[in-house]
């Protein structure tokens, strides 16, 4: 897990050797010179100690799991086609924000993320015929991934069950009583994640009296590819005409009734939910990291011959906090 390489062990030995030599030189030097040499020595020695500590974590620190909390935002493009109200494809720009929690153990990963976004769209009709709409959406994923055997090296592979929730609300004022359409999808499926961890020494500087001490840790730049696929789930669409039965009840109650009336259980092939992500995690201070991801989500569903297709692609950037001080698991 966090075993020092031969090169790192040699570096540690060299640093300790250098600090011992410097300590001997202090004898006989003038006071200011001795202070200067002492400062250098302390800095180097502290560096060496911290490096050694980071490379040889106590046993309790090697066990357990890493906990990460992630927050970020994203910008991107989105497109949808809602056949109930238009045969045209609406495209637009979108922004989203979200967060994630991940517990990475030696053999498994528990991961939860949730993103909400909004965007403005146009149906790209010619000239003044163009229509505009706004949309809001939420998507969340919960997964339990098992570490699968891989040849020793920098690659790791995880796979396991996941659940996905996605819902989008579209508003098109020009469509009167059918101006609000929605999708709802709650699925069980699979997630796979393949990750490449590139070792990287990360350092940070701390103050100790008047000295600045640099500590160095072995961390990993991680490149990953993750795919979520829905296999079975509940899907809901607007009514056949896009208009809730507002004749008999309050509009909100009518909309909820329609939502329930149009709820269907569907398996892979009848619907498609795919969330694809490429990501980079770059280590920063204190075990935290910068996370950059390219996320693409696609959803398709057809009920009563009224298909819907949604595509949301986002470039995400977030800050990932480490909630523990254990050795980093990769």
């Amino acid at each position, binding site marked *: 897990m966090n075993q020092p390489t031969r090169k790192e062990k040699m570096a540690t030995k060299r640093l300790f050797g250098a600090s011992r030599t410097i300590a001997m030189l202090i004898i006989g030097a003038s006071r200011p010179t001795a202070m200067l040499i002492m400062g250098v020595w302390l800095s180097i020695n502290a560096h060496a100690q911290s490096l050694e500590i980071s490379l040889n974590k106590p046993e309790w620190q090697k066990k357990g799991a890493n906990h990460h909390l992630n927050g970020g935002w994203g910008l991107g493009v989105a497109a949808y086609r809602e056949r109930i109200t238009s045969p045209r494809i609406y495209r637009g720009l979108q922004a989203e924000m979200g967060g994630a929690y991940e517990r990475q153990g030696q053999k498994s990963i528990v991961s939860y993320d949730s993103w909400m976004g909004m965007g403005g769209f146009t149906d790209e009709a010619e000239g003044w015929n163009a229509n505009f709409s706004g949309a809001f959406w939420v998507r969340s994923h919960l997964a339990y991934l098992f570490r699968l055997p891989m040849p020793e090296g920098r690659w790791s592979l995880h796979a396991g069950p996941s659940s996905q929730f996605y819902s989008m609300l579209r508003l098109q004022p020009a469509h009167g009583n059918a101006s609000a359409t929605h999708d709802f999808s709650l699925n069980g499926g699979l997630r796979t994640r393949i990750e490449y961890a590139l070792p990287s020494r990360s350092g940070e500087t701390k103050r100790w009296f008047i000295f600045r001490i640099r500590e160095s840790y072995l961390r990993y730049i991680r490149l990953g590819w993750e795919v979520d696929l829905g296999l079975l789930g509940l899907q809901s669409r607007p009514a056949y005409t896009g208009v809730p039965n507002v004749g008999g009840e309050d509009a909100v109650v009518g909309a909820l009734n329609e939502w329930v009336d149009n709820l269907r259980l569907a398996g892979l092939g009848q619907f498609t939910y795919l969330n694809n992500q490429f990501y980079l995690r770059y280590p920063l201070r204190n075990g935290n990291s910068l996370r950059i991801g*390219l996320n693409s989500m696609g959803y398709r569903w057809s009920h009563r011959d009224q298909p819907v297709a949604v595509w949301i692609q986002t470039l995400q950037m977030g800050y990932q906090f480490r909630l523990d001080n254990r050795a980093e698991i990769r």
Partner: protein
Amino acid sequence: MKRIMRYLTLLFWPLLLGGCDQLWVGEQPADDPRAVFETLWTEIEGKYSYLDYKNLDWNRVYQTYSPMIRPGMNEMELFRVLEAMMNELQDGHANLFTPFTYSAYRPLFLSRPTNLDARLILERYFLRDSLAFFTTGPIQHTILDTLGKRIGLMAYRDFTQSPSEAQLDFVMDRMRTCDGVVLDVRANGGGLLTNARRLSGRFTNEGRKSHYHRMKTGRGAGDFSRLEAVFTEPSGEEEHRYTGPVVLLQNRGSYSATSFLALHMRALPQVRLLGDTTGGGLGIPHGASLPNGWNYRFSVGQALSAELDSNGAYWNWENGVPPHTAVDLDPVQASQGFDSMIERAIVDLLSR
């Protein structure tokens, strides 16, 4: 592994570049006149809720208008063909909207007398006693002293405008001091259904079944949702309701949500409908776009009577809600300064 990753990277490179939305949602549809016509015709065939009720042969309509569509026709020519096709539905809720104009089925109200002289009402009734006249939100109201009886006169001409609850309270508080109320919704072309419900609910202390409603749920002629009973439910606080005798004045221009108001009021025993049959428009319309971006709407719902007719069937209100007492505006009386419909309503109230 490196080789595998190289291939996977190549495979998913388009994802990184974006633009793969076309793979997922497809291409924009053809937007030529033929595609626009076919889409509109197909949508009406599959979703319009009154084809059977109006005994419309939609295939015949296709045969009539399809030959008029030709490549290269300009937007105005296309609009006129589609407008004529939509008007075959004879439905005020069947409209085609373009940036330069919209279509409407006008014979619906042009075939009957206007039955309204707004200036006459303002001058001879509302301003008869200017101190008694108020305009509270979208509602004009006054109290007429007629043969020692206090008659409240309310006019609500646009259900797209919503009064606040406090405004409705104020109006109803005044009406509560009256021996009878004339509620004038002539030429109210509709708007928010909730306003019809809120207003009718101010005239009852108990819920009463008004009508049934259902929506189209599939392409088949009989594909409708289950019947939903619709009730006239009390609204507002009881001390702000009026349950005395009421006459609802309506004309052919009382359309859509106003026809629903007529249905709600008709369910109340102390209410009489007077005037002309309403314009109908009791099929809730949906809206959508055509391949060229134009928008349209047509009815996708139906309102059916709460009672059964002699054949044991519900009857359909699409052609309007008839009055209990049919009265047209008498032009002779109008020239003498009298609105014969309001006068007839007052007589009705005084006789109760």
